[in-house]
C-alpha cells in the first residue's frame, strides 16, 4: 500500500498558494514594522459625514496588506482542514486524514462557538470573552484539546490505533507510513505521524496524551486554589502571628527548586512509605473545610436552614473525601469496598498531590496580597460596623471582589500545571513509562532526537499549543474583566 504524503493531491493546488501567501505576509510584516520607525503614526480624522479617514497611497497599503494576507493564510489553512474532512481518506494526505479523524472535535467546537456568540450578552464574563479576539483564539485552542481529550478517551473516536500496541516494521518510521498488513485503504491503514522507538503510533499517543493533562491539570489547580484561598484569606485578614507562620511556610516551599521537590516526593520509594496518602489526606480536606466555613458564615443567622444545607453538602463532600483518600493496599485503607466510591492509582495520586503542593504556596501569596489590599475598603468597614462575623466578611465580602484576578490566575496556573506535569514526565517521574502523556513521550523521544525527531515533536507542539491557549485565554479574560 502507498504511503501518504503530507498534503496529498489537495496540496498540488494549495501548497503553492500557501507558500506565496506566507512569503508575502512575512515581507509585509517586516515592511510594516520598518515603516513604524521611520514614519509618524497616522491619526485618523473624522470626516464631515461621520466616517473615519484612513491613510491612502503606498503607506496605507503597507498598513493594511498584512491584514489581508493573514486572512488569505487563514482561508488556505481552512481549505486544508475542510478539504481533508470532506474528501475521501487519503486524497488530502496526512493533514487531511488527521482533520478527518478530528471531525467530532471540529463539530463540537463550531457548535460551542455558535451557541456562545449567539447568547454572549446573557453569559456574564464568559460571554464577554467573545468580544476579544485574543480571548476567542485562546478559548478555541483550549476547547480543541478538551474536546480531543474527551472524544479520544471517553468516546474512543479520534485515535487510529491502540496507544500501546506495537506493529512490527514501523519502528521509527516517518509520518504517513502504511501499516504493513492493513486490509483496505481506510482509517488505520497508516501511522499518520509515524511510529516511535517501540513502533507505536505517535498520533494516537499524542491524542490520548491530552486526556492525561485534561483530567489532572484543572482539578489539581482547583485543589491548589482551595488550599491557597482557605489559608490565604485569613492570613491577609488577621495578619499577625498567623500570617508570619503561614508566609514562612509558603516561602519555605517556594525556596525549594521544584525539580528537587519532585525528585524527593514523586518516587516509588516515597509511595511505599505512604507519604502521598498522608499529604492527600491533608490537602484534600481543604475543600471540605472551605465549604463548611463558607456555608456556615452565610446561613449562621438561620440555624434550621444552616443545619440542613451544611449537613447535606458536607455529608456528600465528606463521603467523597473519605473514598478519595481511602485506598485498598496503602496505609489509608479504612472504608469497606462497597462504600468506597472511587480509587485513584497510586502513581497518579502522587503526581496529583505533589502538583497541588507545589502550586498552593503561590496561590496563597496571591490571595493574601489581594486580601491585604481589599480589607482596607469601605464595604469591609461597613460590614464590620454591621456586626458581621470575620468569616462572613472574608468569604462573602472580600473573596467575591477578588474574583477577577483569581480567575485570570486560575487560567495561567492550569497552564503552569500542564508545564509541571510535562516536567515530571520529562524526568520519568510518577506516571508509568508507557503512559501516553506528553512529558513521558517527549522524554522517550529525546533520546534519538537528532536522528528521528518526529516522535518527540508532536507532543511538544501539543503541550506548547495548550499552554499558549491558556495564556491567551487568561489575557483575554484580563482585558475583559478590566473593562468594567
Amino acid at each position, binding site marked *: 500500500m502507498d504511503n501518504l504524503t503530507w498534503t496529498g493531491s489537495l496540496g498540488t493546488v494549495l501548497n503553492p498558494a500557501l507558500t506565496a501567501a506566507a512569503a508575502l505576509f512575512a515581507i509585509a*510584516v517586516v515592511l*510594516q*514594522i520598518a515603516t*513604524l520607525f521611520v514614519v509618524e*503614526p497616522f491619526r485618523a480624522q473624522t470626516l464631515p459625514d461621520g466616517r473615519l479617514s484612513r491613510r491612502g497611497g503606498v503607506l496605507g497599503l503597507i498598513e493594511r496588506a498584512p491584514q489581508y494576507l493573514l486572512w488569505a493564510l487563514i482561508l488556505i489553512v481552512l481549505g486544508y482542514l475542510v478539504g481533508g474532512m470532506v474528501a475521501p481518506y487519503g486524497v488530502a494526505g496526512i493533514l487531511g486524514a488527521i482533520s478527518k479523524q478530528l471531525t467530532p472535535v471540529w463539530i463540537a467546537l463550531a457548535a460551542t462557538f455558535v451557541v456562545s456568540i449567539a447568547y454572549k450578552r446573557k453569559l456574564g464574563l464568559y460571554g464577554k470573552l467573545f468580544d476579544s479576539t485574543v480571548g476567542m483564539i485562546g478559548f478555541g485552542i483550549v476547547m480543541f484539546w478538551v474536546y480531543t481529550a474527551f472524544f479520544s478517551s471517553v468516546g474512543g473516536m479520534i485515535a487510529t490505533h491502540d496507544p500501546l500496541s506495537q506493529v512490527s516494521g514501523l519502528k521509527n518510521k516517518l509520518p504517513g507510513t502504511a501499516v504493513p498488513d492493513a486490509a483496505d485503504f481506510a482509517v488505520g491503514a497508516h501511522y499518520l505521524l509515524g511510529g516511535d522507538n517501540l513502533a507505536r503510533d505517535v498520533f494516537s499517543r499524542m491524542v490520548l496524551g491530552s486526556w492525561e493533562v485534561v483530567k489532572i491539570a484543572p482539578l489539581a489547580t482547583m485543589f491548589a486554589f482551595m488550599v491557597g484561598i482557605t489559608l490565604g484569606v485569613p492570613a491577609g485578614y488577621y495578619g499577625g502571628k498567623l500570617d508570619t507562620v503561614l508566609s*514562612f511556610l509558603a*516561602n*519555605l516551599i*517556594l*525556596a*525549594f*527548586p*521544584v*525539580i*528537587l521537590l519532585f*525528585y*524527593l*516526593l514523586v*518516587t*516509588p*520509594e*516515597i509511595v*511505599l*512509605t505512604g*507519604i502521598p496518602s498522608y499529604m492527600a489526606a491533608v490537602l484534600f480536606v481543604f475543600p471540605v473545610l472551605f465549604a463548611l466555613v463558607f456555608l456556615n458564615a452565610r446561613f449562621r443567622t438561620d440555624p434550621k436552614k444552616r443545619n440542613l444545607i451544611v449537613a447535606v453538602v458536607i455529608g456528600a463532600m465528606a463521603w467523597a473525601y473519605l473514598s478519595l483518600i481511602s485506598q485498598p493496599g496503602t496505609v489509608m485503607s479504612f472504608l469497606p469496598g462497597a462504600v468506597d466510591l472511587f480509587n485513584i492509582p497510586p502513581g497518579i495520586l502522587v503526581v496529583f498531590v505533589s502538583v497541588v503542593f507545589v502550586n498552593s504556596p503561590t496561590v496563597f501569596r496571591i490571595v493574601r496580597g489581594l486580601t491585604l489590599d481589599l480589607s482596607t475598603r469601605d464595604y469591609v468597614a461597613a460590614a464590620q460596623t454591621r456586626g458581621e462575623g470575620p468569616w462572613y466578611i472574608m468569604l462573602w465580602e472580600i473573596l467575591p471582589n477578588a474574583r477577577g484576578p483569581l480567575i485570570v490566575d486560575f487560567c495561567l496556573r492550569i*497552564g503552569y500545571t500542564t*508545564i509541571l506535569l*510535562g*516536567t515530571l514526565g*520529562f*524526568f520519568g517521574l510518577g506516571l508509568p513509562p508507557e503512559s501516553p502523556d506528553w*512529558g513521558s513521550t*517527549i522524554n522517550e*523521544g*529525546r533520546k534519538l*532526537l*537528532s*536522528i*528521528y*525527531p*518526529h516522535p*518527540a*515533536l508532536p507532543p*511538544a*507542539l501539543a*503541550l*506548547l499549543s495548550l*499552554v*499558549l491557549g*491558556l*495564556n*491567551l485565554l487568561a*489575557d483575554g479574560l484580563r482585558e475583559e474583566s478590566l473593562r468594567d
Partner: protein
Amino acid sequence: MGLFVLRRFGVIILTALSLTFIVFILTNLEPNLEKLAKTQGNARMTDEQVFTWLDNRGYYRADIIKYGEWLGVLPGYVIDGSDGETRYRCLRPGMTVDEMPRFCGILQGDWGFSTVFKEDVSVIVVTRLSQTAKLMGWVMLVMVPSALVIGVLAGMREGSKLDRTLSTASIVTTATPEYVSGVIFITVFASSAVGLKWFNGSATSAMEDITFLNFTLPVLTVALYGMGYIARMTRASMTEVMTAQYIRTARLKGVSFRNIVIKHALRNALIAPFTVIMLQFPWLLNGVVIVETLFNFKGFGWTLVQAAGNNDIEMLLGVSVVSVFVVLTTQLISDIGYVFLNPRIRIS
C-alpha cells in the same frame, strides 16, 4: 537598613535549616536508605545484608542525631561494625584516625562525601557550580538586554502594531517550557532530519571549551522561557510611565519622541524589571536542570538529577543549601536594590 538586612539573614538561615532538615528526613526514609544500600553495595543484597550494611554505617540512628552530625554540632560517629571493621564519619581517604577531627559538619566547612561521585561534596559543588555559572552568565547576557529592548519597544506606544506583535511573541515564549523549546531547537538546528545542522545538539564539549556551535542552543533554550516574562513586565512598567504627567509635560514642551523615551521614560521604566530579573534566578535554576539534562551538560542541575536519582544524601543536602541561598539572597538583593533605585521607597 542594617537591621533589615540582619533580620533577613536570620530568615535565610532559618529557612535553610528547615529546608535541609526536610530533605534530610525525606532522604533518610526506610525505602530510600534501602535503595542507597543496594546501589552502593550490591543490587542483589538480601534484606538482612541491607540491614547490616546500613547499620554499620550508622544510618539507623535517630534522624535528629544524624542531622546534628551533618550540621557539625554533634561529634561524628565511630561505629564498630558487626563485620569487625570500625568506621568513622570524619575519616577521609589519606587521613589517619589520630589526625581526624571530632566534628565534621557543614559548620566546620565539611560538606560531607558524595556516594555517587566518590568525592567531597564541596569539591563537586564548586566545579559543577562554576560550569553552571558559565551557562547562567551567558543566559543573562542574552536574556536581559533583549527582554528589556522588546519590553521598551512594545511599551512605548501601547496598542500599536509593534506592541501587538512583540506582546504576542512574549506570550508564546512564556508558554514554551524548556523541554519543548529545546526539542524544537534540536530538531530544527541540529538534527539530520531537517538537515540544517547549524549547531550541536549536545553541550558536553562546552564544559572545557565554549564555542558558538555547542553553546548557542542551551543558552537560547533557557533564555527564551524567561525572556517573555521579563519583557511583559518591562512593557507594563513602560506603558505606565508613558502615561505619567511628566511625560505629557515633556511632550507639550516639544521634546521629540525619541528623547522622551530615552532620556525621560527609560530610567523610571527599568526599576520594576530589575526586581523581576532578580526573582528570575530561582526559575533559571529550574530551567538549567532541564537544559543540562537535555543537552548533557554536566553542571549543577545535572548533578542534582544524578544525586536525587541515586539518593545521594549529602550531595542532595549540599545542593539544597546552595539553591536555597541562591533563591533567598537574590530576593534580598532585589529588595535592597529596589530601595536604591526607587528613592520614594524607604525600609523602616
